[in-house]
């Protein structure tokens, strides 16, 4: 069955473009252009995946996730943005988005990403992988709760390959793992990013912008 998706973005041109690019691979059940519009719509439609812009006129994408997630735990969010400011990206991820891709992504890759998010996996663009590596390294320098705040060597390897532009399949072949294992490594990294209570992450993200 095709995934039912809701698009949340305030740029109508972009909405139309995404719709056209995704074509038949998904069923777009609704679109919204603001936080206020998106929250009731998503609750009503209960889609599989919400494609969410990081910046909306009346708030961040994280506001949508925070308002919807308690009532509709089954809805998965994929952040889609041109914004590269690290703290904005980290904010949506920490709110619960299962991935982040940039708007320059091709229709085919986007469809794959939606499918992956629907099945509960994480989607890391090279950029997000870079952010994550940087954030965790900043945390390791400071120390803290190791269990949650550090990446295993394998996870780091996987992230580095994603940052270098490798697809899951290629990573699996290179590291002699199954694609499923790669996916679970990425999901673990996502979980660590989301659960980490360390302030370092936020602080890192803020500093990153100033570099």
């Amino acid at each position, binding site marked *: 069955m095709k995934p039912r998706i809701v698009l949340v973005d305030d740029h109508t041109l972009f909405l139309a473009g995404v719709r056209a690019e995704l074509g038949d691979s998904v069923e777009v059940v609704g679109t919204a252009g603001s936080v206020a519009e998106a929250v009731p719509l998503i609750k009503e439609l209960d889609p599989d995946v919400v494609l969410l812009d990081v910046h909306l006129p009346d708030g961040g994408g994280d506001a949508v996730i925070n308002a919807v997630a308690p009532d509709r735990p089954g809805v998965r969010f994929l952040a889609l943005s*041109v*914004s*590269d*400011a690290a703290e904005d990206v980290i904010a949506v991820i920490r709110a619960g988005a299962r991935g982040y891709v*940039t708007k*320059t992504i091709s229709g085919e890759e986007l469809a794959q990403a939606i499918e992956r998010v629907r099945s509960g996996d994480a989607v890391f*663009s*090279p*950029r997000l*992988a*870079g*952010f994550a*590596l*940087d954030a965790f*390294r900043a945390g390791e320098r400071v120390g803290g709760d190791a269990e949650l705040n550090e990446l295993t060597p394998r996870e780091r390897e996987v992230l*580095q390959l994603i*940052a*270098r*532009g*490798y697809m899951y399949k290629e990573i699996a072949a290179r590291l002699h793992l199954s694609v499923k294992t790669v996916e679970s490594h990425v999901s673990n990294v996502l979980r660590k990013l989301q659960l980490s209570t360390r302030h370092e992450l936020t602080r890192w993200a803020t500093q990153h*912008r*100033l*570099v």
Partner: protein
Amino acid sequence: MSAMALPRFALDTDRRAIAGVCAGIARALGVDLTLVRLVFAVLGLAGGAGILLYLALWAYARARRIWLTVLLAFVSGALVLGAIGLSGSGILGIALVGVGLWLALRRGRSLRPDAPVSYWGLGLAAVGVAIAVPGGTPTLLAPAAVAAALVLLVGPWLWRLVLERDAERAARVRSDERSDVAARVHDSVLQTLALIQRHAQEPQRVSALARRQERELRGWLYGDLPHGNGASSLEAALSTTAADVEEVHGVRVELASAGDCPVDDGVEAVVLAAREAMTNAAKFAGVEEIDVYAEVTEDTVAVFVRDRGSGFDRAAVPGDRRGIVESIEGRLERVGGRATIASTPGEGTEVELRLPRSAS
């Protein structure tokens, strides 16, 4: 220009001890309540002047009986002056000075600096000085009265000048900012839009132009990139390089990074080598997208340039093609780094550039 904000006096019954006059003054002037009470207490000792003044202000606040207030205030002032040993004519003179100055400034019903000054009032004040000075007043008082008059007359005017200057400066800053934005938009966004219109038939070029513009604008808005070509960090330099390659060759370059460092000779060599690698990928790999990843750790700078294109067999590359040997491997070796090129025909190429940071 907005009017100067004069303190507004009203009884403050929340903090009152008697009627709230002291508390009201403290609030209107923004001073400590205890201090105001102390002043009134001391004035109270001066022949009861403090008590009369208190009554005067109370009458003003409760009944708005301005004449009663003025009368009481005058009596109270006279009591104070009498208490410090002034003669009758001295007190009369000072009273005239007070009334005169008040009249002089009252025109327009306010102390606003732009209200016209009454010359009648000034004349009256002068008469007051004339009476007070020969009346056996302490010699200090006359100059003091003149000085006070000057302060009252000139003070508001000076204040207005200061306010105007501040407003002017703020306006200038705003207009500077606006012209800066205008210049920036003109140099970048408008130029790009014009170029896009001219090249509307070449989708690749249009999208390269758009991406370059996006990168620049974002760099400016988020402060990631320095203005112009003087890139100051590895990430910024790679970003500029990527934009150039995109523009020249019509490919898309996805740039990711973890960590960043300043550009020195070694890092510059890495950037130039990365540029060569990107250019090669754009020219020979036959791909639309190139991935570039830069990682900076305490001891190493590493940059990866990857494409999923045709790949090549190193042995089959003609020896006269200097690009790889000179521009990539040689360049890195000269600064103490190393370049590794992994390519499989049909699967793509990855160039890995590594530079130990101690060597740079």
